[in-house]
């Protein structure tokens, strides 16, 4: 098996990273880091196993580490519970909160699960393997992601309605 087959996954990795980070430059940096890691660790990939999943799990680890570095703390709790600092949902008041903005308002760990399951169409078990957590954790993150997304978008709708009433 040759390392060149990674090339075929680059478009999908970029797309996924773009939705995960919400930023084109950060997304390509993340893909670049992922490819470098994949090249270094290429001998560890088991031929016959899903290459895309392996690449996504490398990307997941890098993304977690990056967030940990940025926040100067030990990461996991923050990754789990707080929204991306640059994307405070409240800052969007008065604008239309579209799906991508609502997605960015989710804590990254929830966003990640939601993307793996809905966009990448992984089974819950596969998603659990990629991010290295139990399936139960995938399910609870997925549930919270969907419910938060629902609230974010409903809130916004209500706020718009309220604004229109004031006018």
């Amino acid at each position, binding site marked *: *098996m*040759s*390392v*060149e*087959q*990674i*090339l*075929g*996954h*680059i*478009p*999908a990795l*970029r*797309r996924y990273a*773009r*939705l995960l980070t919400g930023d*084109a430059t950060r997304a*390509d940096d993340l*893909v*670049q880091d992922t*490819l*470098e890691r*994949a*090249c270094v660790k*290429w001998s560890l990939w088991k031929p016959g196993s899903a290459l895309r999943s392996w690449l996504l799990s490398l990307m997941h680890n890098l993304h977690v580490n990056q967030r940990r570095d940025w926040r100067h703390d030990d990461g996991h709790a923050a990754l789990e519970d707080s929204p991306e600092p640059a994307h405070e949902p409240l800052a969007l008041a008065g604008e239309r909160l579209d*799906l*991508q903005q609502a*997605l960015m308002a989710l804590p990254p760990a929830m966003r990640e699960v*939601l*993307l793996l*399951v*809905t*966009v990448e169409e992984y*089974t*819950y078990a596969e998603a659990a393997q990629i991010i290295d957590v139990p399936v139960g954790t995938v*399910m609870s993150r*997925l*549930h919270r992601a*969907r419910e938060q*997304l*629902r609230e974010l978008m409903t809130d916004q709708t209500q706020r718009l309605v309220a604004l229109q009433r004031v006018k």
Partner: protein
Amino acid sequence: MNESPAAVSADELHAYVDGQLAPERAAAVLAWLQAHADDAQRVALWQAQRLQLRRAARTLELDDAPAALADTVLRTARRTHRVAAWQQAVAAVLLLAAGVAGGRWWAQQGAAPLLAGSPAFVHEAVLAHAVFVPEKRHPVEVAASEEAHLVQWLSRRLGAPLKAPSLAARGFRLLGGRLLPGEGTPRAQFMYENEQGARVTLFVAVFAPGKAPAETSFRSVRDAAGESFYWVEDRFGYALSADLAVPEMQALAREAYTQLAR
């Protein structure tokens, strides 16, 4: 038969939305949703989210991939190069090219590359063609404005005097060229473009004495990205690749062949 439907968990509602529900639970979940309007509404919203997300992912506009991304992989590939892997490599790069070109080639990705019997340098040529032809900003390393320098540089690196044939008579002007890794020795790629933006590459291999493939005839191979005509003469192997109509390809190949044979 059990008339009262067993309780349905939130996990099962998600599985229903994601198409991951065990078939034997489908009836129970549907019955549950009919009996529980709040859950039915919640599930409908989740389904809408799912569709919206998938649509957002599909319609996401990405810039051209930075060349550094593919370069990272190709650098490693050079180090771990193994000839037997070319087949997958070509397929992978065609998929990459398909992504870059906006899906034009997706429809053809299932077509089996008919490269199996051709010499290794032809595989290299097809791969290099697929990688660099979609490049908008860096299709070549050295531009045709420095043609003398380009030819001299590539000749020196390949260890034999090269020529960049003129395909102007067929409407293709030289864009430039680049140096590429090959099996054991470097390779050269010249790229040409016509007024419509169609691109042709000429891939050149110079073999060490006694290492040239035996085959010397004028042959063609077809793959998902187009057609490659190749021939081997003395120590030189040439492959001309493009996605053009066959008569046009043949005319170009004859033109290149005639000039290079001189």
